[in-house]
């Protein structure tokens, strides 16, 4: 890895033109997204979404917010593992996880600006009137605070990049406090996103509605975080291997095996509490219905199966299997959030009244994810995320 490459970055490989296939496609997505953005803010939600009075929440909430927050959980999971549980062998995974977490939450806030009717009023619950009976108030407060925590945790990398040693050392001393705050705030908002739906028992299908919803969402956020770290590490290794230092490369296998083992264990626990949820509400007979089949697809194909595959991968030290399983698990988390928010929601309604996203809604979601990847690439190719800055090598 050359220091110069670290400074000049790699928007395109040195010597080649800016118009790589990725850049071209990303560029088109960004331009289309920009156009839809203008439409959204000049013509209103009705012009760019298929939201209606039966479906006030669409994929901007179901995917961008709900799945996005779950998948950004790698930040608190990894820093808890390393700093609270003392598992130093995963240290190289902390910075990429924090970066993914920070970008994830930042993008959730961006997506939120598209979804709410008056985004300039987003600070209102804090500065005008506090609707403290609402779980959404709690989600908003925790997400805002946690984004701040993530930003400070992430800031060590740009501070090192900019050579601001004093500021950097102040932030590093805050690591323990920030990590603990991060776990508290994450526990709260991850679970509360699930708890939002407790208010609508008549609208959410009984196989998904449970008084355990907050626990389900929290536990699955841990699974999502562990899997995203493996997933992101796989992709980074494919595209940014030249940025990785020896420690990172050496620890990579350990991270995949260790996190895969943890994910398998937590998936097993998640599977059990989902089954217990059915038994507590005596909903066995529902498994034979159409929605029941779909629930089983989620439970068996995206929870039980990855649990088993992770276990096999860990036992056989099969890194390839672990990597693919992490992708399957990530899809499963997204599926679960979409199920709770959109598919099993309003299950009573006839199919001609059901919601399917407008292509422009999909366009914005893709736009937001693409923007995230582009920013990720920018940061990872310039700042000490995948490697330790030589000036600060031993100061953790």
């Amino acid at each position, binding site marked *: 890895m050359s220091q110069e490459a670290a400074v000049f970055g790699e928007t395109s490989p040195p010597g080649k033109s800016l118009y790589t296939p990725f850049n071209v496609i990303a560029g088109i997505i960004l331009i289309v997204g920009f156009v839809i953005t203008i439409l959204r803010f000049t013509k209103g939600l009705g012009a760019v979404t298929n939201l209606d009075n039966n479906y006030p929440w669409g994929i901007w909430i179901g995917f961008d917010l709900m799945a996005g927050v779950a998948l950004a959980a790698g930040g608190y999971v990894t820093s808890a593992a390393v700093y609270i549980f003392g598992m130093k062998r995963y240290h190289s995974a902390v910075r990429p996880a924090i970066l993914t977490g920070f970008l994830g939450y930042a993008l959730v806030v961006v997506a939120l600006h598209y979804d709410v009717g008056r985004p300039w009023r987003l600070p209102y619950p804090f500065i005008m009137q*506090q609707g*403290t*009976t609402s779980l959404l108030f709690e989600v908003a*407060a925790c997400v805002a605070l946690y984004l701040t925590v993530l930003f400070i945790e992430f800031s060590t990398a740009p501070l090192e990049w900019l050579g601001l040693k004093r500021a950097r050392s102040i932030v590093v001393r805050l690591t323990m*406090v920030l990590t603990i*705050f991060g776990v*508290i705030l994450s526990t709260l908002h991850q679970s509360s996103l699930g708890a939002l739906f407790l208010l609508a028992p008549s609208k959410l299908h009984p196989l998904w509605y449970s008084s355990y919803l907050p626990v389900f969402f929290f536990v699955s956020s841990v699974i999502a975080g562990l899997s995203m770290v493996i997933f992101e590490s796989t992709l980074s290794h494919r595209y940014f291997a030249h940025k990785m230092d020896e420690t990172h490369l050496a620890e990579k296998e350990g991270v995949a095996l260790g996190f895969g083992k943890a994910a398998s264990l937590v998936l097993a626990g998640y599977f059990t509490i989902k089954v217990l949820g059915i038994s507590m509400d005596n909903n066995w007979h529902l498994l034979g219905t159409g929605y029941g089949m779909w629930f089983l697809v989620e439970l068996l194909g995206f929870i039980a199966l990855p649990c088993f595959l992770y276990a096999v991968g860990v036992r056989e030290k099969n890194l390839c299997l672990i990597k693919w399983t992490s992708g399957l698990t990530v899809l499963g988390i997204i599926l679960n959030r979409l199920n709770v928010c959109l598919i099993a929601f309003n299950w009573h309604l006839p199919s001609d009244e059901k919601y399917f996203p407008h292509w422009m809604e999909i366009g914005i979601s893709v736009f937001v994810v693409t923007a995230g990847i582009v920013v990720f690439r920018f940061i990872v190719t310039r700042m000490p995320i995948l490697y330790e800055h030589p000036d600060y090598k031993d100061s953790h």
Partner: protein
Amino acid sequence: MEIQTLQDFFLHTKSITYILMAVILIGMTGFWLFLTDRDED
């Protein structure tokens, strides 16, 4: 001002609780620093 509805009751209790939570987080941090100040590391 008598509290007549469950909604009003929760509004009242949760508001106080949120403020307490903020105080607890800051207070706990201070207490933790106080407790671990003289640890040899």
